[in-house]
């Protein structure tokens, strides 16, 4: 049985370059590094829990197929999240469905049910609030608040300016505070 995977110290651009030269381990490392963040982002955007892994795989697949279009203007993670977001948007449009209702939430069982329930209640309200935001505000908020991306990065992948991204973020925060309060 193989032992635990040793983390690769190479930066994302170096891993991408290695993958382009045929190093498949570099691709696996990129998945290890970003799949969880991508999954959380997609779920927060409204993806159904049972779809999250498929969406992750498809996002990475598309990303690896068009690595040439990643020019380093944004971080690899932000670029990947943008691909995932577009994929989810296409899926929702194809299925003609609304974002997943909260009742369908299917998260891991809590170790402390009471504390977990209270926390998940706030998170559920945030998720419901996010679903009511305009798409750009929702994406800017999640990239900034959840992923810690800077405004320059967000602007590069969403095709806007850092100033406009900042305005979207503050509008989203204001609206979510009202919805979650």
């Amino acid at each position, binding site marked *: 049985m193989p032992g635990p995977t040793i983390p690769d110290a190479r930066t994302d651009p170096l891993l991408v370059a290695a993958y382009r030269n045929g190093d498949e381990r570099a691709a696996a490392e990129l998945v290890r590094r970003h799949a969880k963040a991508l999954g959380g982002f997609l779920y927060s955007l409204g993806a159904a*829990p049972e779809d999250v892994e498929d969406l992750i795989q498809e996002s990475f697949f598309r990303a690896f197929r068009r690595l040439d279009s990643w020019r380093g203007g944004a971080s690899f993670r932000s670029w990947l999240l943008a691909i995932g977001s577009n994929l989810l948007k296409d899926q929702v449009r194809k299925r003609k469905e609304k974002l997943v209702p909260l009742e369908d939430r299917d998260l891991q069982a809590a170790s402390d049910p009471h504390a977990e329930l209270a926390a998940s209640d706030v998170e559920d309200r945030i998720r419901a609030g996010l679903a009511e935001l305009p798409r750009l505000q929702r994406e800017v908020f999640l990239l900034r*608040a959840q992923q*810690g991306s800077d405004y320059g990065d967000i602007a590069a992948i969403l095709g806007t300016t850092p100033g406009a991204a900042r305005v979207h973020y503050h509008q989203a925060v*204001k609206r979510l*505070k009202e919805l979650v309060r």
Partner: protein
Amino acid sequence: MTGCGRLSDRIPAVASGTAEWMPGELQHLAECDECKSEWNLVSASRRLGQRVGENIDTEAVAGMLLRRISTNRQADRSKRRWTLGSLAAAAAVVLAVWLGGLNGPRVLAPIGNRAPMVETAIELPELDSLAPAELDSVLQRMDDPADTGSGTDQVDLGDLNADELQRVLDTWEG
């Protein structure tokens, strides 16, 4: 609502663990409901993402993805081979049609400055004296393959007597 945003630019960085609060910021956070509310919002949105992320088996995703990429590469390669083969076949057909379309006297391609060679009729006066039946027989034999193998009607000149041999030689000399 006062709409205080004094810590807005710092909250995501501190929540993600890439920065820490300064003493003055901590003091403000303790006293400002707006900033506290924003801090709670950002922290909860991070937890929302993390809880889902914990359930994702990254090794399984990586394995499936690499298999898919490998399969896709093979499909791309065979598709490229098929396309090249089709192009080659199409080029061959076009070439054959183009060559077949050259009517009239068959002109061989000129080499250098040499004049093109035109296929000409070869005159055989020795055939003029033959009766139609004999001519047919000769023409029929000319159409036969050159290598007649061990045909039973093949006659060696050594088998002929002197008169027959003389007749054959007269025929050759016209």
